């Protein structure tokens, strides 16, 4: 008995096969399943919760799986005032997240220190973390956070996954100089 293997066009699977680039597929998988790590530090966290709840429903964008463990998260949403007391804890949590990882600075405080020009507040979380998207507002509306998520998805979609597969992630900003000295081997 002779068997034949069909190569090429197959009418039985027509319409069920999509041809694409590997990179585009990987980015597509990533962008629609960003698991957020809710770094809720102040009132912005309330808006973050609203964004996750039924009215605004962040699940529409595939980012509803809030994980309180950094090891299971893709995007850290820093929502609220980062005090100096909390700063190195936030940084440690970020360092524990697996690559690839992103950061959204939600609200005025996380972006720049906001109204707290004070001895106690870090003047923007970008002093210790590489921030991908900044969200304006005090606090931002949930729509603004969803917009930030969509912007982050657009960024993820453009990332050269295969080219950077073996490369480490973005370098951490190291400030102040004393902190930098400590991080160097």
């Amino acid at each position, binding site marked *: 008995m002779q068997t034949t293997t069909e190569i090429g066009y197959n009418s039985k699977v027509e319409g069920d096969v999509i041809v694409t680039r590997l990179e585009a597929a990987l980015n597509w998988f990533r962008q629609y399943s960003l698991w957020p790590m809710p770094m809720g530090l102040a009132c912005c966290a309330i808006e973050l919760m609203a964004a996750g709840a039924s009215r605004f429903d962040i699940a529409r964008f595939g980012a509803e799986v809030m994980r309180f463990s950094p090891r299971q998260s893709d995007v850290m949403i820093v929502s609220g005032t980062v005090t100096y*007391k909390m*700063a*190195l804890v936030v940084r440690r949590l970020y360092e524990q997240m697996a690559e690839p990882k992103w950061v959204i600075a939600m609200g005025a405080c996380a972006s720049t220190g906001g109204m*707290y020009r004070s001895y106690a507040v870090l003047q923007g979380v970008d002093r210790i973390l590489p921030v991908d998207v900044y969200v304006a507002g005090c606090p931002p509306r949930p729509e603004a956070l969803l917009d930030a998520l969509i912007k982050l998805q657009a960024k993820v979609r453009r990332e050269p996954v295969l080219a950077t597969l073996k490369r480490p992630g973005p370098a951490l900003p190291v400030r102040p100089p004393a902190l930098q000295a400590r991080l160097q081997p």
Partner: protein
Amino acid sequence: MTALELARQLRHRFGEVLSEPLEFRGEITLELRDPERIAEVCQVARSELGFDLLLDISSVDNYDRPPRWLIVYELYSLRHGQHLRLKTQVAEEVSELPSVTSVWPAADWHEREIYDMMGIRFRGHPDLRRILMWEGYPYHPLRKDFPLRGLPSEVPGVAFTESAPLEGGPFVTTPGAPDAIAREPRARPVREET
């Protein structure tokens, strides 16, 4: 019994160490002339006059008008439903007074906060550590001579601080100015000290 009567009883008990009860807008204040006796006065206020609730302890920095520190105790009696305020002044060279944790355990965190923010020590406190800032932070940030923008510091592995950009500020008001326009917070020259 009213707060005024309770205050008179306390003064009768301690005499000249306490001032005459001062009344302002229905609130009674006693000034204690010797801060070393604060725990003793509080003990009597609690056990004999029924001031069983310590609402708050706060502190004032008079900066260039000595004595520098003013410590304010807010007492409340559940039995009488009355408030009483005790004030006592401490010189900067001393910066220490007895703890009232033996009278009200609630004083524990209040006194730690004053120690942290103002640098006033409480003798006999069971655990006088910083409560808001971290161990090793070198300043007492609510002192008048500490700049609002903060000063750089670092405790490796725990926390660091930097000076905040104030962009023309801090915006401070002028208490006692004749009208609301003059009292409005405006940028004023920063006092550079410490």
